[in-house]
């Protein structure tokens, strides 16, 4: 690696990928989220934890371009190095981002998959939206990604509804990752699954995140999931972020009384 390349690499990781300032959207007093700011760096995994109703999911909608905030900004640095203000960007830019450099893994795979078409078509959709017009290529990508998420490639023509819950979730992940995104949002990705299935999925996710150097924002109420995947955590309560920091730090030595309560209420792994 040349010095120039090293310098470039250094500047690439030294600059945030995603920058959030004073993000606020309230449905009622302390319902929603307010005053949230943070930076996310390439390859970094940010966990958002808190009980239901704390504003986690609202925050995720705001971050991922699904719901315009009352105030505040969300900016993203694209693969060309240009900063884009999510909510002043055009609808076309936002949509392009959502189907290329970004991904979104829904809690319920039914919301993130096209249930009426085969696994292969689900995986190929993003590529087709980007203009791939070669059936053979789409097919090859489908088989490759099924293998990467540990689904038997022979099932490429099966409908997602014939898959188990864990397989559907893995298929949803493959469908998102096929376009080589840089940033993935996840909403309780292990939410509806059995414990043993959860463990396998988490393992797979952790491997893929490291391998593909993905930045991830993951919402979860499960601290074990957070510990396994997240580099940093934000603890939310009643629309506010009450504590933020490195995952180990927060889980092993929580400062805010609410974080302490949250941590003490679950068994340590």
């Amino acid at each position, binding site marked *: 690696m040349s010095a120039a390349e090293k310098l470039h690499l250094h500047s690439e990781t030294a600059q945030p990928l995603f920058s959030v300032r004073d993000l606020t959207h309230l449905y009622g007093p302390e319902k929603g989220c307010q005053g949230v700011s943070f930076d996310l760096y390439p390859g970094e995994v940010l966990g958002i934890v808190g009980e239901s109703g704390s504003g986690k999911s609202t925050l995720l909608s705001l971050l991922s371009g699904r719901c315009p905030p009352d105030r505040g900004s969300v900016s993203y640095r694209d693969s060309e190095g240009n900063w884009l203000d999510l909510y002043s960007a055009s609808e*076309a830019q936002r949509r392009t981002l959502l189907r290329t450099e970004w991904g979104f893994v829904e809690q319920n795979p039914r919301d993130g998959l096209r249930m009426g*078409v*085969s696994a292969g078509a689900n995986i*190929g959709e993003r590529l087709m939206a980007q203009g791939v*017009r070669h*059936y053979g290529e789409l097919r090859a990508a489908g088989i490759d990604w099924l293998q990467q998420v540990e689904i038997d490639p022979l099932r490429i023509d099966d409908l997602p509804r014939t898959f188990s819950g864990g397989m559907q979730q893995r298929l949803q992940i493959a469908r998102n990752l096929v376009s080589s995104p840089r940033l993935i949002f996840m909403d309780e990705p292990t939410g509806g699954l059995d414990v043993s299935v959860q463990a396998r999925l988490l393992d797979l996710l952790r491997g893929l995140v490291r391998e593909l150097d993905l930045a991830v924002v993951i919402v979860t109420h499960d601290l074990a999931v957070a510990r396994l995947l997240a580099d940093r955590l934000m603890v939310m309560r009643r629309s506010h972020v009450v504590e933020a920091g490195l995952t180990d730090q927060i889980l092993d030595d929580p400062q805010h009384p609410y974080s302490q309560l949250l941590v003490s209420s679950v068994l340590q792994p």
Partner: protein
Amino acid sequence: MNAQAQTQYATEVGYNFAYLDEQTKRMIRRGLLKAVAIPGYQVPFGGREMPLPYGWGTGGMQLTAAILGAEDVLKVIDQGADDTTNAVSIRRFFARTAGVKTTTRTPEATVIQTRHRIPETPLNGDQIMVYQVPIPEPLRFIEPSETETRTMHALEDYGVMHVKLYEDIATFGHIATSYAYPVTVDARYVMDPSPIPKFDNPKLHMSPALMLFGAGREKRLYAVPPFTRVVSLDFEDHPFEIQRWDECCAFCGSQDSYLDELIVDDAGTKRFVCSDTDYCMQRRDLEEEGAQ
């Protein structure tokens, strides 16, 4: 042709030439000009209630009424034939309300209103095709919301169209859409060519005739201007193909026209005949002349 001059041709008392009032015709013509300027784009228009039911060609009839002049010669086909009841009924409507000359011969017609076919006889630059369209939105069966489909068109967000084609190939080994086969017009808008068989799609490409499409119930019109690129959606390694028959027409022997299948006896014996009755007739006339 001004309104006064046209009025004297009207044969039905109490109605304007070609039924619609001149204001409405002007409104439709403005829509048509926009449609021609943006090939394949669906222009909303203030569709009127016609004295025929929605779904029976009210969109096509409004377009025909808006462009018809007293000197025009009108041909109306349904399923390729001039003799089907709906074609008869629409032809009569314009014969009564506009008093225009009608014909069944494709080369003689200046305006051809059609449901589900494009004539086999090549069209020329002096002809206008008017298509009756039931559902103008090619994305409708994937996305039911109009607000969303309009956004998808605006952003050229068409990836999902290929999902359907991919699925066909994965399931059947080839694309299984046989009519109302979606096309890209002038490398921009995805368009429903109306429920013509895909056999007719290639006739849209670089046609010298102006193609107008009207959907009355949905209140949309769109156009393919002469000499416009019209490409049927496909994959590089699964190119678009049209239907072929092993049989030929039982009347005229044509091997390259679209054939209708007839069941001629209780044993289910089949015969195949041209769906385009005028084309078939022309070929048989030529044969007779040749024999003489």
